[in-house]
């Protein structure tokens, strides 16, 4: 039933030029139904499917690929990786916590 009210949103030119292999983290702006959400793609709004992921809330980041969220991005882990880069770079000021 949720697919019944799904409306094709014509993807922007730019999106279509992105190689299909590339997937990017995007912010969930709003939930439309149990398994559909509106995401914010650097200013462009786009509807995606949430059927492959669980417990997604507005404000979460998800890895989106061909219109489907493949995984929720773990923001804590992202910060940890950035902190590791900073440590590798010997930049103590960028140390997290």
């Amino acid at each position, binding site marked *: 039933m949720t*697919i019944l009210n*799904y409306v*094709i949103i014509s*993807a922007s030119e730019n*999106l*279509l*030029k992105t*190689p*299909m*292999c*590339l*997937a*990017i*983290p*995007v*912010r969930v702006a709003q939930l439309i139904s149990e398994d559909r959400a509106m995401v914010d793609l*650097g200013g462009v709004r786009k509807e*995606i*499917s949430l*059927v*492959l*992921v*669980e417990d997604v809330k507005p404000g979460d*980041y998800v*890895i989106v*690929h*061909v*219109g*489907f969220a*493949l*995984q929720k*991005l*773990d*923001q804590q*882990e*992202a910060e*940890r*990786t*950035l902190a*590791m*880069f*900073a440590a*590798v*770079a*010997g*930049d103590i000021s960028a140390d997290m916590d």
Partner: protein
Amino acid sequence: MKYIDEFRAGNIARKIAGKILAEADSRRRYHLMEFCGGHTHAISRFGIPDLLPGNIRMIHGPGCPVCVLPIGRIENAIQLAKMPGMILCCYGDVLRVPTLSGMSLLKAKAQGADVRLIYSSTDAINIARQNPHRTAVFFAIGFETTTPPTAVVIKQAQQLGLVNFSVFCNHVLTPSAISHILQSPEVRELGLVSIDGFIGPAHVSVVIGSQPYEYFAEEFQKPVVIAGFEPLDVMQAILMLVRQINAGRAVVENEFTRAVMPAGNVNAKSLVADVFELRRSFEWRGLGAVPYSALKIKACYADFDAERRFEIFTPSIADNKACECGAILRGVKRPQDCKIFGTVCTPENPIGSCMVSSEGACAAYYRYGRLRPRHAAASGSA
């Protein structure tokens, strides 16, 4: 954009490069294969080879889904598209791929075939529902990342009882291609393939997890580091591989912890297992027949399998003899070793698979690295 820009900081990239330079042993060479086309693209786009010492060489693997699709399957799709009443739905990447006669889905469209470019598999279902008196086929391609979305629409089509929708399935599997590269007889013929470690794919691993790579690490004693798509991710993964190689270790490490879990996306994997089963063998452009490397639709979803519905037979079509893709994809040669690279074979007129999409090794090299002089020190093949 958040979680993209921070992973592109040039100053940190240079610092990681300094670490790599300091830790890489100048007496040994490091041949590292990035399997995934997305990494190939990022490595070329951000000029990562320029940041690496001469004894670290990146080898571009066969992880570009459009490049490895055999021309015979493109022929099949063109034939389907030309059938009366047919709407063929496909991802944009496959539109331009030429067959040997120079035909493509784009040209078929220009000649009147109803070929629709879609962004998502869901679009294909909608097109079928909006055109109940016509037949719609979704030309599905890609690795483990696009497979779950295809599984979702096949199940939806069954639930909706859609009789005018089917899928021409061309989904392929990453782990089987990696083992093929490491152990196929061609590798022995082509000479010593010198791969010292792998950068594991980003989004494929989001779906399948890090566990499937443990086999390579153990069986072939090759370290694997799963990396995100951004340049800092790739640089960090290279540093982690250098450290493993120096220490004589061969384990699976995960740099992309913000998105990759050990078991991957369990939900997505079980959907795929429900809808698809392994093909005994599938032809990969540039690699030839690879055993158990692709998926087909299970018999219980036969109504939605275009291959059964339209009795599709795929001819095997060889690439031009001059094309070195087979050797390039196995790390034995490089794009500039091909005699027709950049002259006869260009992105506008691709002769072999590696030139087909911007994620292919030859196309990425043509676009970003064509003018870069060759590292004498890094030259593996004489």
